[in-house]
């Protein structure tokens, strides 16, 4: 980079015309990223577990509905889904409800991103939960039923506890993805980390884009890696010695 004037202190500089500093923008962006990713993950985990379980249910209608849900949310690009929730849905609702969504709803960008990202991720979590259940030997279910458990009890006490342990590694990837995918929310104007990066490197502090982009990349790396370590810790804590995901 021949004559590039490196200035890593750029993020500590004051924003012209305000009394804020750029690092405060990045911190606020980080806050929104963490908030939307974690809340979307809660939605994804709860809905994904329910839907994934439903896909293995003996009831054909229930399993079919769950399959339709997964295919719907898994096959449309995330950015398109966010656009649909944000721009299209209010136009399809009755006038009053649409106007409320557009003008009176609190934190519209945040809640839209939370729901959109949560539903998108839930379809992927559902697939993994289903895989986990299917990976168990059929005998487990039958043994549970033979011992007098009802079907829900078999799921609750026999199948799901083992299934979740099996799918911790892919769920780790999904948990990390939710943080990285949250960057898409800038498309509907959520002022998260990537948004702040674009804001700073656009017109505000345009002379040092490389430093700001590098710093933001490192923040994402740290975020995703922390999630990775957290999940590894959980995996170790809950392992069943001698069983499938318990081995080192």
């Amino acid at each position, binding site marked *: 980079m021949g004559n590039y004037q490196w200035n890593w202190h750029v993020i500590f500089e004051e924003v*012209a015309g305000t009394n804020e500093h750029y690092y405060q923008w990045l911190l606020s962006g980080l806050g929104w990223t963490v908030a939307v990713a974690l809340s979307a993950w809660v939605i994804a985990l709860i809905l994904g577990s329910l839907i994934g379980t439903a896909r293995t249910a003996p009831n054909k209608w229930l399993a079919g509905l769950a399959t339709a849900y997964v295919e719907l949310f898994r096959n449309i690009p995330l950015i398109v889904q966010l656009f649909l929730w944000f*721009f299209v849905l209010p136009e399809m609702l009755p006038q009053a409800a649409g106007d409320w969504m*557009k003008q009176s709803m609190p934190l519209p960008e945040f809640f839209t991103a939370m729901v959109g990202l949560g539903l998108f991720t839930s379809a992927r979590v559902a697939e993994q939960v289903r895989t986990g259940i299917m990976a168990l030997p059929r005998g487990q279910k039958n043994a549970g039923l033979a011992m007098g458990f009802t079907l829900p009890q078999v799921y609750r006490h026999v199948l799901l506890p083992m299934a979740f342990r099996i799918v911790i590694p892919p769920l780790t990837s999904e948990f990390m993805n939710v943080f990285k995918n949250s960057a898409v929310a800038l498309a509907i*104007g959520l*002022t998260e980390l990537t948004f702040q990066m*674009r804001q700073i*490197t656009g017109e505000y502090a345009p002379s040092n*884009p490389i430093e700001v982009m590098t710093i933001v990349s490192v923040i994402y790396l740290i975020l995703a890696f922390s999630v990775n370590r957290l999940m590894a810790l959980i995996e170790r804590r809950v392992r069943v010695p001698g069983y499938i995901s318990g081995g080192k």
Partner: protein
Amino acid sequence: MQKSLILSALVASAFAGAVQAEELTGTLKKVSDSGIITIGYRESSIPFSYLDANQKPVGYAMDLCSKVVDAVKKKLNKPSLITKMVPVTSQTRIPLMVNGTIDMECGSTTNSKERQKQVAFSDHYYVTAVRMLVKANSGIKSLDDLNGKAVVTTTGTTSDRYIKQNEQGKQIDVKNVYGKDHSESFLMVETGRASAFVMDDILLAGLIANYTNPKEFAIVGPALSVEPYGIMLRKDDPAFKKVADETLAGIYKSGEINKIYDKWFMQPIPPKNITINLPMSEKLKEAIKSPNDVGI
């Protein structure tokens, strides 16, 4: 005898080389050595620099830049110089200029003091004002009318700064919302998510011109900021900047600028044959009358 001949030939060639090096420095030397001049263009900065229906970069700034390329060809006496086009974005244009990927950027880049830390600018070729786009029937005429309303700006621009500054001064309270790009910000006003879109007036005029029913929208209010555009060049390269400035000065003096302006701002332009219809502003007339490169 033989020896001294060779020696003098060597001295002569070394001297010739030195003269050459003295004449050509920086970008001119790079262009002369490689036989290629590289222009950075924008993909959707209508009507300055954008892709037409054949995916070819065209526009007001591109026309001016091609004149500069002609001048470089003449100066280097290399009519076969190859012009290479590289697309840039608002995030990539400065790094690509500094690292030598592009030799000049022809788009819609504001000449700011902040940018001058890394790059240089030719004399200005356009002056834009930051104003508001609103629905024509909204009754919004000035900033005061925005109290309690949502105002959209595009990510990466500084328009929200002007609103915030005015907010403090005028005791109004607005909600800042953001579109990912200009067409999305426009969509926010169209669908009623925001009451006003604050942006460079020329970009607003382009958006309105492209809308199915342009009469539904209006550009109102005072200029919140006035920003000059220049051709972005490498820093500390006076020889190349001189070529660019002299080319522009020639176009300004001969009045050719009026023809080029007319072509892009008053006549139908590709790809949809829409007319922006924005007569030359007083500020631009000033910049043409007395060319300058003082940034903001």
